């Protein structure tokens, strides 16, 4: 058992934490797939408006690797295909039938899986639209089955404030989880399971599968952090990873032979209508997911899909994407504040000791304000203190800005897990992480 500790990181006390309660949401009138929100993919559409689709019918494939299919999240009629600038496909909306049909893929028992070849399994997952759940470090693109796999990390953590908790989605699903692990073992013998920090009761049942434990705060349980602190050689850099809940989908896909649409999602943030977990399905409209009360969102709320640090801002009339299971609503925070820099700040969130909020035991209302203006870097080193993978963000930033590729890589650019903690703490409000992401992407494009 490997224990990963990051003494660094920051304690985030953000108000609006979702409870572990689980409610069922009613089926919406339509669901959608958002190709533009899937990183790196170049979608080639396989349907047009008016087509009838079943659950699991391929809606598009990845032009880069056409074997990879993306299945329909619902059965019904393709109602709308929304394009964005440069004809990116923003959404494929399906109006649902009352009785939705499924595409029937082959279902496999544990013995079948044991007997199947690696290639057969990969092909089945690609055809069934579940392969994209498996991603590869360090670029976090969909895993390429032709490349060697040093290992797969299964991530049970959700220390980013407010993602679905593994103790909720693993309830009654420990067997399913175990068959998922067996499935992954067909891809590589090195399957690692990280136990999330804290004391989740369900995870105890899976004790025999756990290979990594961790201590610390966000993002200590991120697969990238786990890899960085446990790798023995550079060969492991291209390890794969999968989210714990997504592994259940893989297992369910083989168990039922159907494209899995059920999801456990979470709605949080101090402006959310309900702060808890929901059983629902992939691709639902945001408004359904606790964001609204009688069709009305809280005034001044920002809809954040996929987490406060790594997620994106969404319109209220949009849908949940393929990977996203979390909606967070907090205030936009665009109000000016008089003499803000002199206030004692008992209610102001900060990881520094410069506000009285260090002595505030409760969670603190947090908004999307910058809380200051962009300034030059003063080399205060706050960013260094929070980076979970020992990067020196302020120096790496300089290399990246100067386009020094070799130098940036030597500084560990590719180890960056894109957690944005450096951006969060920077008193000069420098968006370090965004820049690192860009640089990684540019380098990735050069490689491929």
């Amino acid at each position: 058992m490997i224990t990963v500790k990051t003494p660094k990181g920051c304690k985030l006390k953000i108000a609006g934490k979702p409870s572990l309660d689980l409610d069922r949401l009613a089926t919406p009138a339509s669901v959608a797939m958002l190709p533009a929100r899937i990183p790196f993919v170049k979608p080639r559409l396989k349907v047009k408006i008016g087509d009838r689709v079943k659950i699991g019918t391929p809606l598009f494939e990845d032009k880069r690797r056409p074997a990879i299919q993306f299945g329909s999240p619902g059965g019904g009629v393709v109602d709308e295909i929304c394009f964005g600038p440069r004809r990116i496909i923003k959404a494929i909306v399906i109006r649902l039938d009352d009785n939705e049909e499924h595409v029937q893929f082959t279902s496999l028992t544990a013995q079948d899986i044991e007997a199947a070849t690696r290639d057969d399994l990969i092909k089945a997952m690609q055809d069934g639209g579940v392969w994209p759940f498996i991603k590869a470090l360090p670029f976090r693109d969909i895993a390429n089955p032709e490349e060697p796999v040093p290992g797969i990390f299964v991530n049970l953590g959700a220390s980013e404030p407010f993602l679905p908790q593994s103790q909720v989605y693993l309830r009654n699903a420990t067997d399913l989880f175990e068959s998922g692990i067996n499935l992954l073992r067909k891809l590589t013998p090195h399957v690692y399971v990280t136990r999330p920090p804290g004391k989740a009761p369900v995870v105890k049942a899976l004790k025999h599968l756990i290979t990594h434990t961790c201590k610390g705060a966000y993002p200590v349980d991120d697969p990238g952090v786990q890899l960085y602190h446990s790798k023995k050689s550079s060969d492991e850099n291209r390890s794969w990873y999968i989210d714990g809940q997504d592994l259940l989908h893989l297992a369910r896909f083989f168990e039922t032979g159907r494209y899995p649409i059920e999801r456990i999602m979470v709605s949080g943030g101090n402006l959310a209508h309900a702060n808890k977990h929901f059983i629902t399905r992939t691709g639902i409209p945001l408004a359904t997911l606790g964001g609204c009360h009688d069709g009305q969102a809280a005034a001044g709320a920002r809809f954040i899909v996929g987490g406060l640090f790594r997620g994106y801002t969404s319109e209220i009339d949009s849908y949940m994407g393929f990977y996203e299971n979390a909606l967070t609503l907090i205030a936009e925070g665009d109000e000016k504040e008089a003499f803000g820099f002199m206030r004692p700040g008992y209610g102001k969130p900060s990881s520094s000791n410069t506000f009285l909020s260090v002595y505030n035991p409760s969670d603190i209302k947090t908004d999307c304000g910058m809380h200051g203006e962009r300034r030059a870097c003063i080399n205060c080193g706050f960013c260094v203190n929070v980076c979970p993978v020992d990067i020196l963000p302020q120096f790496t930033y300089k290399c990246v800005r100067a386009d020094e590729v070799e130098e940036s890589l030597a500084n560990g650019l590719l180890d960056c897990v894109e957690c944005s903690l450096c951006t969060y703490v920077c008193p000069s409000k420098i968006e370090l992480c965004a820049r690192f992401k860009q640089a990684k992407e540019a380098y990735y494009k050069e490689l491929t």
Partner: protein
Amino acid sequence: MMKPIRNLFDAQRRHFAQGGKFERFHPLFEATESFFFIPGLSTQSDAHVRDSLDLKRFMSFVILALMPCLCFGIYNVGYQSLMASGKYPALLPAVISGLQTVLPLIIVSYTVGFFWEILFAIIRKKEISEGFLVTGLLFPLTLPPTIPLWQVAVGISFGVVIGKEVFGGTGRNILNPALCGRVFLFFAYPMRMSGDAVWTVVSDKTADALSGATPLAVAALTPSGETVETALTSANYPIETLCLGLYPGSVGATSVLACLIGATLLIVVGIASYRTIIGGVIGVLAVGYLLNLLASETSMAWLSLNPWHHLVMGGFAFGIIFMATDPVSSPGMNASKWIYGFAIGALTVLIRVFNPAYAEGVMLAIIFMNLFAPLLDYFVIWQRLRKRLANV
């Protein structure tokens, strides 16, 4: 209460916006407005949430930490002045007399410095950085109280323009701007910056003024064979006085006690690095004890001085706490900070002992180490990166 101010800014904004008649002065408008209001910007990319700490608050803490030094300095300047003029230094008259001397220094420092800041901000079309709030106060606190105001203006101009702006402004400067100005004055106008007469303002010239030498001067002039300690005590500078700071010296740097209050605040809120400060103290003690070993009956009195005296004499405490910890001009890595602090402490003592002409060794030591800070970082980072498993 804030409403009318808010409205005032909102009404005037268009004149400073692009195309407005005062477009060029936008940085000034922005700086003034953001002094009153944290601007209502929300995150556009990267993390959705941000820490509440910004540079303005960061710098405000340094100013807050300087307040004990400033207040005590005002009192002390007045006290020394009254004493020298043969008057009884009661609290209130001392403070009033001190204010008369110190306030003009600070006002000139801020006004002239801001003039340059604004000018460069307009030329560069950049925001005005808060760093100057600190520089503008640090600088006068290091000066002798008798300094003519025009020299304050020249010094701060040098500090801001040559020490900072030619490098590209706050964040890019290698040297600490306040210190740069101070050192410039020291070399350009040595008469005004040294000698016994400059440390006390004597208002009543007719009175039989007696201005004392500073403890450093006393120590430097101690004949060999006598100990510095006795020389200090007979000059009425026992170690308690040195700690408290009630003796002639630069405006705000005499009181070790006041400096320590500031240091505690800065370390607790995490704005100054304790590594630099402790490193500095260790440096002074280490070299001090080393010199003790070299001392003999006939050698310089300095050599046998108990090193703890070095810590409380002159501007060492002020320098290591407020100047050396300036994040921009000090190294960024923790290991380099220890070395940097240590070297400053060591150099301070060496300069004091072996070059009594530059009695105020700490300034030169810090400026010198400022130059080496990038190099220290370079080696520490190189060491650190060697340990990383490559990921390419």
